[in-house]
């Protein structure tokens, strides 16, 4: 803090066909600060970051680096000026080592043109050590965890001498423990005088690590504030332009009949899990990375093979060996990875939303175009998805709106039992509140929801009951009254001995 001004943006405007993504925004970044960028889905955060990182041109405005005006023509260009971006989709070569990836295209060579492996591994390892990272530079990238891969990207930024590192929703794919590793790394970077621009929809994180924040709304600059000058409510109301008083709707749930049951299901990463879901209930499942929560959800949906076990829907044994069969049995699924598993990015919003309901929308041989358009429009309205037209490719939407499209697809399929994996990952507070309200309404209408989340405040806020998993087994089941973060975390991490779990 208190460093000199390194980057200044003035009146940046960026238009896409039909959308003004940025409308004259300002931003000032100082040396050694963590600068959080806040705003609803589609506010233009990622767009601005891509502009800063040279990955996208802007329509008008000016950019100053340490007082001098600069224009970047490519990401390489920006890197030369010391600006690097950590993308959410890692662009590393899985078969190569960490060191090779860090120096890709710049491998040190001996005078005869042979790669100087000793030097490469030594320097790479030094950079990793600097950040307090515990893995070897010789590890192949494919063997790294998501967090480690991300750390490698950050270490790579150091090797190119980055002064500003942009992180666009870096924690979206990380579990609680890994987030702490990331935060420690960020502290190290700060000490080196590197500025970090940090985008996240998790407010607690922003208040934990940032020094200053800037808020955008609908592509417009709202305010820049020191973290001490603001608080949660203030930021949220600046983001959405109104007060979001109760993020989690008040739930009035009374136990009803069992509608779904899994008996002793097993698969890779899931061991003898049994659970029951009641009509109208929201059951939360959580655990650390590798606890098997995601595997469990995919197993129920038939997305990964079940080794043994039985699944009952409305008391009837069902074959859920493929997603199609699970859908027919009345189970719907929202994946935690919308880009790889949720959406066909090339295809239109309409096609994506109707993808799970094609049978219902077919009359005879033909898809009923009118019916489809109407149904899709209903969902777009109900979920308040910001689109200029339903014919737009889904890939052009902002992250949060993409998530809503996946949601719309599952809602249109009209399943009784919904499995939601990290349903609000990358979704802004306003939209989060909307999604929670929708979940609430769905359960009131008699649907039942299984929600998997590593975001504990969310889990506690929405669930009527929570199951904690560790190493593929269920270790704790608690009701609404007993829920608290410490207890859940303690059981998830194994910090509680078996006797205390109350068996």
């Amino acid at each position: 803090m208190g460093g000199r001004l390194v980057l200044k943006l003035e009146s940046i405007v960026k238009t896409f066909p039909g959308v003004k993504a940025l409308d004259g925004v300002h931003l000032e970044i100082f040396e050694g600060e963590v600068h959080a960028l806040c705003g609803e889905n589609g506010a233009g955060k990622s767009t601005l970051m891509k502009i800063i990182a040279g990955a996208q041109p802007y329509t008008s405005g000016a950019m100053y680096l340490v007082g001098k005006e600069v224009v970047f023509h490519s990401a390489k260009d920006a890197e030369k000026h010391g600006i690097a971006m950590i993308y959410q989709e890692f662009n590393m070569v899985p078969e190569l080592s960490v060191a090779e990836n860090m120096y890709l295209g710049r491998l040190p060579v001996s005078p005869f043109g042979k790669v100087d492996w000793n030097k490469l591994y030594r320097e790479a390892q030094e950079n990793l050590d600097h950040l307090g990272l515990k893995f070897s530079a010789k590890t192949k990238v494919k063997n790294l965890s998501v967090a480690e891969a991300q750390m490698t990207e950050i270490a790579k930024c150091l090797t190119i001498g980055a002064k500003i590192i942009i992180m666009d929703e870096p924690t979206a794919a990380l579990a609680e423990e890994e987030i702490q590793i990331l935060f420690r790394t960020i502290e190290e970077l700060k000490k080196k005088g590197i500025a970090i621009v940090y985008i996240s929809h998790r407010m607690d994180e922003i208040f934990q690590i940032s020094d200053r924040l800037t808020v955008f709304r609908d592509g417009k600059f709202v305010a820049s504030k020191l973290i001490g000058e603001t608080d949660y409510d203030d930021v949220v109301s600046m983001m959405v332009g109104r007060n979001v008083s109760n993020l989690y709707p008040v739930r009035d749930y009374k136990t009803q009949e069992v509608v779904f049951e899994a008996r002793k299901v097993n698969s890779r990463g899931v061991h003898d899990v049994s659970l029951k879901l009641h009509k109208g209930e929201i059951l939360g499942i959580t655990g650390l990375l590798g606890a098997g929560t995601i595997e469990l959800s995919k197993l129920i949906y038939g997305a990964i093979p079940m080794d043994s076990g039985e699944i009952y829907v409305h008391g009837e044994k069902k074959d859920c060996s493929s997603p199609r069969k699970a859908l027919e049995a009345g189970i719907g699924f929202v994946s935690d990875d919308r880009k790889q598993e949720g959406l066909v990015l090339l295809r239109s919003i309409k096609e994506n939303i109707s993808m799970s309901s094609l049978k219902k929308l077919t009359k005879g041989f033909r898809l009923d175009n009118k019916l489809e358009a109407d149904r899709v429009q209903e969902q777009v309205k109900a979920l308040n998805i910001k689109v200029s037209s339903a014919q737009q490719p889904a890939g052009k939407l902002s992250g949060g709106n993409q998530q809503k499209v996946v949601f719309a697809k599952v809602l249109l399929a009209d399943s009784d039992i919904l499995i939601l994996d990290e349903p609000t990952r990358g979704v802004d507070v306003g939209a989060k509140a909307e999604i929670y309200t929708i979940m609430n309404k769905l359960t009131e209408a008699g649907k039942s929801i299984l929600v998997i989340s590593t975001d504990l405040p969310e889990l506690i806020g929405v669930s009527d009951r929570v199951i904690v998993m560790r190493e593929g087994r269920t270790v704790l089941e608690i009701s609404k009254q007993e829920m608290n973060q410490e207890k859940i975390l303690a059981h998830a991490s194994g910090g509680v001995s078996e006797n205390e779990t109350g068996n």
Partner: protein
Amino acid sequence: MKQETKKRLINQINIYRSVLILLVICIFAAFLSESFLSVSNLFNVFKQVTVAGIIGCGMTFVILTGGIDLSVGSILGFAGVVASGVLASTGNTFLAVLTAVAIGITCGIVNGFFISQCGIPPFIATLGMMTLLRGCVLVYTKGSPIPVKVDSYKFIGKGTVLGVPVPVIILIALFLLAHYILTQTSFGRSIYAFGGNREAARLSGISVKKTEWMAYIINGFLSGIAAVVLTARLGSAQSTSGQGIEMDAIAAVILGGTSLSGGTGFVLPTVVGAMIMGIIDNILTLMNVNPHATNIVKGAVVLIAVLVDKKVKDLSAKAE
């Protein structure tokens, strides 16, 4: 405002770019040879492209899934010789056509089985089929052509209805049907979804294996139809017929703007792509160019067209 119109123009070009390429080539052709624009020659061109066009139609399905089928030429060859054999021994046109179609479908089923059920890459699986089936053709014919002597069979390749050649009618009917399937049915949606993101399609409840399998079956079926049209037009089945046609068909699909990586494109432009290839052939023949040199020109045109296509796409990406 100017930017807006520019953008719109580029978008228009994007939609009709295959038609534009076709027009440019036609204009060239008209300059190079006077006889090009005569009605009989144009019908001739149309007839020439029907075989590659019909196969290109099926190939569009396969390429939309992100796959490729190299075996179409051999399927055509095999279906052609066996159908002609059946025709020669029974004299029954219906039976011969049925044989060709059945062989096409069977080959498609086998291709699709290896690809969708066993997970063998399309390139490898169909490369194997291509060689295998060509071997079958040679064994069946022992290298000598099988003549076609039944008039009702020949009608399929040479006849006209109200002055329009039968193959052209078949071509148009098949393309319209394919267009309908791709744009108006849930199977069509599945093809696009599969090609765009297989995992997302699977998790959306689409039977991905069936969808992929079906694409190869359709392609096999159309190769069978193409075999009938070709043998009926030539009046005989050669052991070499269909050789190299997979390249013409793939080129037609690409010239039609369908992306090789799958998920985007349309079937109707494929017929335009086939026309482009056919006209190049035709004009070179009219100009008495050494037939051996034809491939040089065809290859070059494909490269140039794809290059232009990429430039236009880059331009429109920039305009955004």
